[in-house]
């Protein structure tokens, strides 16, 4: 009995330690968010940071479903989009009626919009998990997206609904015209939302969400109705998606049907999965990477979706745990001090793997640019110009792909061997089960 008492105290001390580390991480995150625009102050980076912040909230909200509760939704943008529309209409109403609601509170209106639709449709959608849930979410997504084009008075048809954010009541003398002010507004809501969503995972409901994800059948035998659990998770996901949508409406001063369509739903799934659903920070990494790629790739290639597809397939096949999963795989090695064995193997593999990737990129671009005007047929790869019509480019591509593949395969084998040695050490030292 006294044994139990001491161990319960141990657990308590352990969770205290975790709490300290936990607060430390949030403080660092807040400082990074504050300092970031001081280091990268160009208009372009402010716009990128703002978009990234919004996608992080959106992806984290999606992971309440996918990673926490095991629900694969194809229609999450419904909540993002309707949150955005409600926020736009709220802003216009505030301007028209002269209400004294300041802009920083508008994202909350978006959240309420996302939550409201979740409360209404969620009960039916979450009745079942698995394929049934996925299909119904897809159906609802299509339904809402198509009605948005029909109900012109609410959704503004093709062109959408616009607003002017500077016409809202000012706070601290900020009129929220300049992008830097919008950035800080997004950063503020990002911190609040991320902390709230993390806290949610540490509540009784959050833990039971994981249990429903792992084994919904057994949950019924420990007193819980998995349907209610899924429904509540769905409502929270809808709420935070709505906040992201509201921020987007403020950022662009417009909401249109693209906000709630299948593409938007696909991108958030994509970002969350690439980042990794098993860890809270996974979707954050995924949202940063995907938004960055979206912004960067669209300006250098017309077939950026194709690259997204290739990356997605690669992650699903070779790293189903996403980036976070890849990183966390190395944690036992770091603790055991055997990570050093991996680094040379990684560095050696990098060269042929990059060569292989360059070959594939060349091949894709050659095909994609055949019918473009002559000046668009110059492929600029790592600073070297290649002509899409020249046989020399074809040859280079084939050599890079074939040669890169055969050399890379050898180096990948080295990685596998080094991995075996490093994990054996970690296991011997008790850092790996």
């Amino acid at each position, binding site marked *: 009995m006294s*044994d*139990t008492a001491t*161990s*319960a105290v141990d*657990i*308590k001390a352990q*969770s205290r330690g*975790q*709490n300290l580390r936990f607060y430390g991480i949030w403080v660092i995150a807040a400082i990074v968010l504050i300092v970031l625009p001081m280091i990268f102050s160009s208009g372009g980076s402010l716009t990128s940071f703002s978009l990234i912040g919004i996608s992080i909230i959106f992806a984290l909200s999606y992971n309440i479903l996918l990673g926490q509760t095991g629900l694969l939704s194809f229609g999450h943008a419904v909540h993002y989009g309707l949150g955005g529309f409600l926020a736009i209409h709220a802003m216009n109403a505030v301007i028209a009626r002269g209400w004294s609601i300041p802009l920083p509170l508008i994202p909350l209106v978006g959240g309420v919009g996302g939550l409201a639709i979740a409360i209404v449709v969620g009960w039916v959608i979450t009745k079942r998990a698995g394929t049934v849930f996925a299909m119904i979410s897809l159906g609802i997504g299509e339904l809402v997206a198509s009605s948005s084009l029909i109900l012109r008075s609410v959704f503004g048809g093709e062109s959408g609904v616009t607003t002017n954010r500077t016409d809202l009541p000012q706070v601290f003398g900020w009129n929220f015209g300049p992008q830097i002010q919008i950035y800080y507004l997004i950063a503020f809501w990002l911190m609040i939302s991320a902390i709230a969503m993390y*806290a*949610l995972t*540490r*509540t*009784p*409901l*959050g*833990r*039971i969400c*994981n*249990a429903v*994800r*792992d*084994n919904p*059948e*057994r*949950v*019924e*035998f*420990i*007193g*819980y*109705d998995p349907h*209610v*659990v899924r429904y*509540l998770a769905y409502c*929270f996901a809808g709420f935070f998606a709505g906040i992201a949508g509201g921020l987007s409406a403020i950022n662009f001063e417009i909401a249109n049907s693209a906000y709630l369509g299948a593409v938007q739903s696909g991108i958030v799934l994509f970002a969350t999965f690439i980042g990794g659903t*098993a860890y809270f920070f996974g979707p954050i990494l995924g949202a940063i990477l995907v938004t960055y790629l979206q912004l960067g790739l669209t300006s250098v290639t017309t077939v950026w979706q194709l690259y997204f597809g290739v990356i997605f397939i690669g992650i699903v096949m070779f790293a189903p745990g996403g980036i976070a999963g890849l990183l966390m795989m190395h944690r036992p090695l770091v603790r055991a001090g055997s990570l050093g064995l991996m680094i040379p193997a990684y560095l050696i593999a990098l060269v042929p793997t990059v060569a292989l990737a360059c070959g594939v990129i060349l091949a894709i671009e050659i095909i994609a640019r055949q019918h473009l005007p002559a000046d668009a047929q110059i492929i600029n790869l790592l600073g070297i110009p290649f002509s899409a019509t020249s046989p020399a480019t074809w040859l280079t591509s084939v050599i890079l792909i074939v040669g890169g593949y055969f050399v890379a395969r050898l180096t990948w084998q080295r990685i596998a061997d080094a991995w075996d040695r490093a994990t054996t050490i970690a296991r011997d030292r008790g850092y790996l*089960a």
Partner: protein
Amino acid sequence: MSAAIEVQAVEKRFGNVRIIQDLNLSVAKGERHAVIGPNGAGKSTTFNLISGHIAPTSGEIRLNGEVISGLRPFEINRRGLSRSFQVTNVFARMTVWENVRCAVLWATGHRYAFWKNVDELPEVRRRTAEILEDIHLFHRRDIPAGLLTYAEQRELEIGITIAGGADVILLDEPTAGMSHAETERAVALIRRLTEGRTLVIVEHDMSVVFGLADRISVLVYGRVIASGTPEEIRGNPKVKEAYLGEEAH
């Protein structure tokens, strides 16, 4: 005083196949009741019926006098009945600690709370630690349940079942696949943990059954052919013929 469990004229069909026919079973409060019978007799199906996993085609099941047939498993669980599974049924990606803690949450009244920090609930923490000590898994608490050994998973299965503090416990072959030593340990554990509660256990090891049970029911082809004290069952010619006789070969 009403019985803890009262199964009355229950029938269960899967399609046209009648798996359970005219099943009658009564388990008194505080009793340790063993259900035995050959493979495929319908023992697990009986547990599925009582715990609400499947609904009876006809008939009635009562828990402490209240009709529970037709209720969902979580409704029955909230009324004080908890069951384990013959095939281990845990939360594989969650740690051992989390597995037991989840099973403690409803019973401690925290339900779907999303405004409480789960790590700051002293009662939950204390009960989780206690159960883990009881099932000898405290030192394994940070391991994902899916990575436990088979015998450890069976013990966790029992831990999850008793964690909610239910008065009526149904254990479906808790010692199946265990070595002799593991079985002895598990039986001692079951004996201790179900002290003062009602236990219904499906078990194949006859020494365990006759050592543990106050009463025994013998199930053959979905029917209870005999129910009584161990002595009565041992001396029952129908049982000898249908079941124990075969075993003795």
